[in-house]
């Protein structure tokens, strides 16, 4: 049908083909998105169900009755708002420290030449390959010596010195052309000036990425708070949530209501950080 030789017809077919292609593209993207969010929807729907309704087949996506009381219970049964603030404090402090110290270190590893640079950098990466489970005990003992056990500082510091940040920044800085830095050096900028005036503004997407990951890591960390925090009033959300799981029973409805409440800030951070993903790095003035 489309193969009639007429030019005009072809042209029209061409544009309608374009629309069809566009529609297909959107349909595919929407379908994939749906697959991605189904468990998230399950989480929301379960948080509004009665306990006995949650499991079973087929899935009931819409609860028979909306148990908004689950949320009320979560926020009143345990001091959830306090846990919220604690977690926020840890996540924000750790993220800020991580971004500052890692971007400085990452800059050195990417752009400043000194003899033992690569060896030192290798050391950083190598430590990432050791499973956390076996580092935990020595770490705990060091923290104990410094007197930071049962304090938020232990978690903030552990989050702030994650080698992940250094590695990430180094890789992003590598793709910034050296010529740009040379030009700045000739213009008389100090290394710190280069870092602050050139590197950082060019690295908004990288910073945003690290903010997302670091915040999320601190927010969702369970093992760290479990080991380091003992006093009730210091608990984080993930730790507080565990009290819906007891020896013989898990209160899934409450657990899901808590999980939904907990996830909101991470999504907000993700959304805000995404704003930095604009192509603000349009022109670096150098051809590659």
């Amino acid at each position, binding site marked *: 049908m489309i193969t009639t030789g007429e030019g005009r017809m072809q042209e029209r077919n061409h544009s309608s083909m374009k629309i069809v292609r566009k529609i297909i593209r959107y349909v595919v993207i929407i379908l994939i998105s749906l697959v991605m969010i189904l468990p998230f929807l399950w989480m929301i729907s379960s948080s509004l169900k009665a*306990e006995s309704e949650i499991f*079973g087949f087929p899935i009931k996506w819409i609860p028979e009755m909306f148990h908004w009381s689950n949320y009320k219970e979560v926020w009143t049964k345990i001091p959830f708002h306090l846990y919220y603030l604690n977690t926020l404090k840890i996540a924000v402090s750790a993220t800020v420290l991580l971004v500052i110290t890692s971007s400085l270190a990452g800059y050195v590893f990417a752009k400043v030449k000194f003899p033992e640079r690569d060896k030192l950098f290798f050391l950083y990466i190598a430590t990432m390959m050791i499973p956390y489970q076996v580092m935990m005990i020595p770490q705990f003992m060091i923290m104990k010596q410094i007197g930071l056990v049962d304090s938020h500082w232990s978690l903030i510091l552990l989050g702030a010195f994650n080698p992940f940040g250094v590695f990430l920044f180094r890789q992003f800085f590598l793709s910034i052309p050296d010529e740009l830095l040379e030009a700045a050096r000739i213009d008389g900028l100090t290394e710190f000036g280069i870092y602050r005036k050139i590197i950082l503004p060019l690295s908004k997407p990288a910073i945003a990425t690290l903010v997302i990951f670091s915040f999320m890591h601190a927010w969702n960390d369970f093992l760290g708070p479990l080991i380091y925090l003992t006093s009730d009033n210091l608990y984080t959300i993930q730790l507080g949530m*565990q009290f819906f799981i007891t*020896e013989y*029973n898990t209160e899934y409805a409450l657990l899901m209501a808590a999980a939904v409440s907990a996830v909101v800030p991470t999504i907000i951070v993700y959304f805000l950080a995404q704003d930095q993903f604009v192509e603000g790095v349009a022109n670096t003035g150098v051809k590659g």
Partner: protein
Amino acid sequence: MRKKCWSLVMSLLILVGLVLTGCGDSEEKNTAKGDSSSEVNLKMAVFPADEETFKKAYEEFHKENPNINIEFESFPQKQYYEKIRIQLSSGIGYDLFAGQIDTMVDTGILAPLDEHIKESDMDVSGFGNMYDAMKVEDEVLGLPYRKSNWMMYYNKDLFDEKGVEYPSDDMTWAEFRELSEKMTSGKAGNKTYGAYIQQWPQTWYMSAVQDGASIIDKDLSPFKDALQNRVDLEKDGSIMSWSEQITTGAHYNAAFQKGNVAMNIIGDWHVAQLRQAEADGDISFDWDVVPIPHPEGVQKNTTLALPVGLMMNKNTKHEEAAFKALKFFTGKEGAKTFASEGYITGYVDDEIKEAYLGDGSQKPENLHYFLETKEYPEYPMLPGVKNIVVQQIYKQEGELALLGEQTVEETIKKIEERVQSEWASKYEE
């Protein structure tokens, strides 16, 4: 520069050594304040679900011993042991802690209690044979403040509907299989299951243990019948199959509450769950308990029990006060508080029984069965028993049998081999 670098690294390494070896003692000195004559502060780690009851018992205790203060700490259930062990090993002191002895015995910090028990004339007859279960190499390393044992719950309404007599308190596993089949009806979607068996390994191996076998025996042939029994129930279609349980996230509590399961074999704690569900209006059917089925030739109401103990830190600076508290919580006084909260206690006598049964206004009608059991420990408390290693073997190989990947015969043979090679060769002395 490089030299400097290395000397820095070396000195840091030495610091590590100091940290690893030195910190054990430092804290103890800190806590060594005051002696038993004046005010004593004890720290005690307990399971989160038990904390409230402990606090209740502590109120009584504190009235009698106003100079002893106890601070309770609890941690998430699943990570309880890793948390207290890390704390203890870095020198953060608990004077007392709750838990299963076998998970703590290798630390070497459990204080033997025999002397104290003798000196204080403590009556231990109430613990029955659970007292012996607390002994490791002839030393008592803890006392049970509660225990859990197994029972069968049944849905009376389903039996009434089908016009079948309620299950008897003296039923063999073969009779149980028949009864389950009789109670099964309907097809997928709205099927009524004769029974629900939780997907834990002890639910199939319990019948061998009821007969006196132990999961670490060299000859595990008694376990063949036990596993065969579970496989047969599945084959009959009278229980939910293992693979279906796994893929639907099935759980005994929700399954039984749904009302389409006639009999549910699970622990005593289920009583509290059902009472709660009743109070919340989640279930409308009538229910009761009977003893679990038993193998041919075994006394009725023989069950498996898992004692949960209270242990004392060898390094405590307040040994006397700590034992006083331990004695109170596990002995008659504490038992009364725990029993009236619905716990089966380690220490049992007539008074405790009364406290446990209450005024009879609460279901189940035949709660008394829990107090008349003959018990075998769920697993043996030998020194160095790494219970988890053995449990894992039973779980892993059992799963394969339930999936039909290997026969019952092969499975038990494999378990036998693996228990020998992965457990006995390493931990048995």
